[in-house]
């Protein structure tokens, strides 16, 4: 059940080291750590085909950021862009580039209470692929700055 093209060997070695488990207060009776659980995944019941209704409610109360590394194919940026557009929120300003380290880091579109961001050249795991850009984006979001 390890996702394809992902190397988790170092995490497997580290987290299954008895000294590490002890430091993290994991009882010896608890199962070995693995990146994904086949047991959980196989029995999992999905109840929502779309999160449209949840977003329609939540956008009235909370600040939301939807971001996408733009070369991921598992959950690609275009699908999430279409999803945010389907909410039919008012746009504030034009779609624009955003910059990190004097380079265009991606593109951003603001809506009422929602910010839609792409991170150029990042895949599914954005903070792993573009760590500096991810931190800048995250910090701007929690501080509510552009």
């Amino acid at each position: 059940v390890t996702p394809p093209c992902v190397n988790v060997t170092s995490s497997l070695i580290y987290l299954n080291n008895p000294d590490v488990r002890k430091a993290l207060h994991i009882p010896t009776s608890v199962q070995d750590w693995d990146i994904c659980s086949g047991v959980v995944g196989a029995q999992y019941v999905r109840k929502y085909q779309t999160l449209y209704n949840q977003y329609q409610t939540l956008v009235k109360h909370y600040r939301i950021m939807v971001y996408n590394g733009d070369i991921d194919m598992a959950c690609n940026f275009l699908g999430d862009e279409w999803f945010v557009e389907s909410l039919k929120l008012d746009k504030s300003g034009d779609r624009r580039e955003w910059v990190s380290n004097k380079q265009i880091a991606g593109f951003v579109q603001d809506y009422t209470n929602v910010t839609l961001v792409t991170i150029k050249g990042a895949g599914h795991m954005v903070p792993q692929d573009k760590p500096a850009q991810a931190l800048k984006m995250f910090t701007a979001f929690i501080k509510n700055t552009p």
Partner: protein
Amino acid sequence: GSNPDEVLSLPGLAVQPKFKHYSGYLKASGTKKLHYWFVESQFEPETDPVVLWMNGGPGCSSLDGLLSELGPFHLRDDGKTVYMNPYSWNNAANVIFLEAPAGVGFSYSDDKNYTTDDDQVSMDNYLALQDFFTKFPQFSKNPFFVTGESYGGVYVPTLSMRILEGNATINMQGFAVGNGLSSYALNDNSLMYFGYYHGLFGTDLWSQLQCYCCNASYCNFHDNAQPQCSLVVGEAMNIVYNIGLDIYNLYDDCAGGIPPHATVFKVAMSNLFRNYKIKYTPLIKKPPKLR
């Protein structure tokens, strides 16, 4: 006072960090205990926001988020040496990494029943979050955000709904979703355009996709009743998924190379084109046995 969950010495780290961090369990419903690893902010933990992070799957561990993505502790290839990530999100916030649902990573349930669903998971995460603020009441007034990626696209808004509708004292400000699953239909349909406009599909295949899956105004690749459509979508997915491209990062190398013959990656595939039974054809056929 002292907290029994505090991690006093992390193996493999040459110098212990100046910020505090904690690892332990949070109570969910029934006999479920969810493992968390909480890293305080490196600068002003008393006032910085508290952020919950959840990886997806469903069924994958958020410790990957900590050790490979946004956490402060990253691992060398030897699996023994830990180094500090200068771009950790705890540069700006206190971050909780939660392993959920029970059965994932170090999370468990005494009754070993790991059947669950989206609603149960959101409730268990909500209960665990309340237990977190019982353990750490000093953070209950800090601004709070829910974040996650991938199937976190379901976990994050459903937990946010619990927080909105519940009566727990949480200073919820917002949520963020990275490369999240927000709609199966939009995710499937957009992927075909993504593949074509990144040059993965040739003109012949694209023409067939349009011919069998589209009408004059709309293409439905997601759950098209036409058998020819599902066949050509299967052909397209074979290219996206099964010929050695990294589905998570188109321009990166696939760790381990082209997947071996007949490898089935259940977790990754479970979120795409769930309405079809796609038969994947390996790029490299298994060689005949030599005598």
